[in-house]
């Protein structure tokens, strides 16, 4: 029996052990249950897959903690990106021309909607939800690519001019497409991404429960089943299995009689 050795998550193994104890099946590894069905291994793998998919879904799709992301961008100096964009002249500090453009977003005499620390926080929050188009497994906040830095400037300028975070996100979605969001919108086909891991896990658990119920019935059958199978294959040996042939019967009776 190979369930213990499939490398499933420890939680799945513990779950299995608990259920087995509960229904009173013999411990795994007992040679009496000789049914070579591949089912249990497959189901265990399914549980492991569902559990790890669920765990992965939670980890990858969960909102990246702004604190962690900010720490990353504060500590890491602006590196040369592989996209080649960092080989341009500007790269270390925000381009002065860009800062000028930022001021141009507002109409003359108009007050910025958000300023100071609040603006920084809001910019970081929006940037953490957008995907860097160059380093696509990083958020715009985390990425050190030039384009990400410039996108942050754009976010900042638009927030300052009074746009809401949703409007800023909509601006990027209009231009880059929905993949610019790190977390896909939970609608339509995207719902599969959110629901499938949980459904797989549930399906695996249900499958295991059904199979275990079948195993619980198996031990009573297996003895008779083995005998029946072997009996069916060779009628002549039926006696030899359930009983002994006459010669051995006599010897057994002698031995028992001697022992008293």
């Amino acid at each position: 029996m190979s369930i213990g050795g499939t490398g499933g998550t420890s939680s799945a193994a513990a779950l299995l052990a608990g259920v087995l104890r509960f229904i009173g099946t013999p411990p795994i590894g007992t040679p009496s249950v000789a049914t070579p069905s591949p089912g249990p291994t497959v189901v265990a793998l399914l549980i492991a897959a569902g559990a790890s998919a669920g765990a992965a879904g939670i980890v990858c799709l969960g909102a990246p903690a702004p604190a962690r992301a900010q720490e990353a961008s504060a500590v890491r100096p602006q590196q040369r990106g592989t996209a080649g964009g960092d080989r341009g002249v500007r790269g270390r500090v925000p381009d002065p021309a860009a800062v000028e453009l930022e001021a141009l977003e507002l109409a003359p005499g108009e007050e910025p909607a958000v300023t100071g620390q609040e603006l920084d926080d809001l910019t970081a929050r929006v940037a953490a939800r957008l995907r860097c188009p160059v380093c696509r497994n990083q958020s715009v906040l985390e990425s050190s690519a030039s384009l990400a830095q410039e996108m942050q400037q754009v976010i900042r300028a638009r927030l300052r001019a009074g746009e809401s975070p949703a409007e800023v996100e909509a601006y990027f979605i209009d231009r880059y497409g929905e993949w610019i969001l790190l977390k896909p919108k939970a609608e339509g086909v995207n719902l599969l991404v959110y629901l499938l891991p949980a459904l797989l896990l549930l399906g695996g658990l249900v499958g295991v429960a059904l199979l275990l119920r079948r195993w619980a019935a198996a031990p009573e059958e297996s003895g008779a089943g083995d005998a029946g199978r072997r009996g069916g294959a060779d009628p002549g040996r039926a006696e030899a299995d359930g009983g002994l042939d006459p010669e051995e019967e006599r010897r057994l009776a002698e031995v028992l009689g001697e022992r008293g």
Partner: protein
Amino acid sequence: MKARFWLPLALAVGFLGLLGFGLTRDARTLPSALIGDPAPSFRLATLEGGSLALEELAGKVVVLNFWASWCIPCRQEHPVLRRAERDYPDSDVRVVGVVYQDAPRSARRFMERLGGDWTSVLDPGSRTAIDYGVYGVPETFFLARDGTVAKKHIGPIDWEIVSTTVDSLLGEGARTGSFPADRAGARSAGGG
């Protein structure tokens, strides 16, 4: 017994088929969200020191090429852009470059060395690049006469793409009989 054998097999084959289909898709080239929308306007300084606004090119087919001097594929596609500039009259088709994350001096040197008479504009802060949903170079946008984005090509372009796209875009606005209708692919390439 039969279902137990065929069902997992069918599921496995189905799943493998899905994975195989995934292998045929190129994750690096993402579809543009701008197709069919009006092209974002801009007014930017040119390499020569003047300025260019997109509105000045209204009514013309525009080949908008985002490039940089440090970009090797941009060098590879440069002859194609030169041919586009040469083969189509300026009154109908204009090639416009947008310099992406580059120093003006390097960009000017690139154009001097490789030739070409079309205007390239500088894009400080990549505001225009972001406006167009650009994430790398080279990327080329084909704008129809009415100013909408007809096609976006990611990576170096070749003459086949340029000629079929521009021909079909010219054909859309042209008066009847001006352009040959039987040029291969002319009808189908419009809109990407």
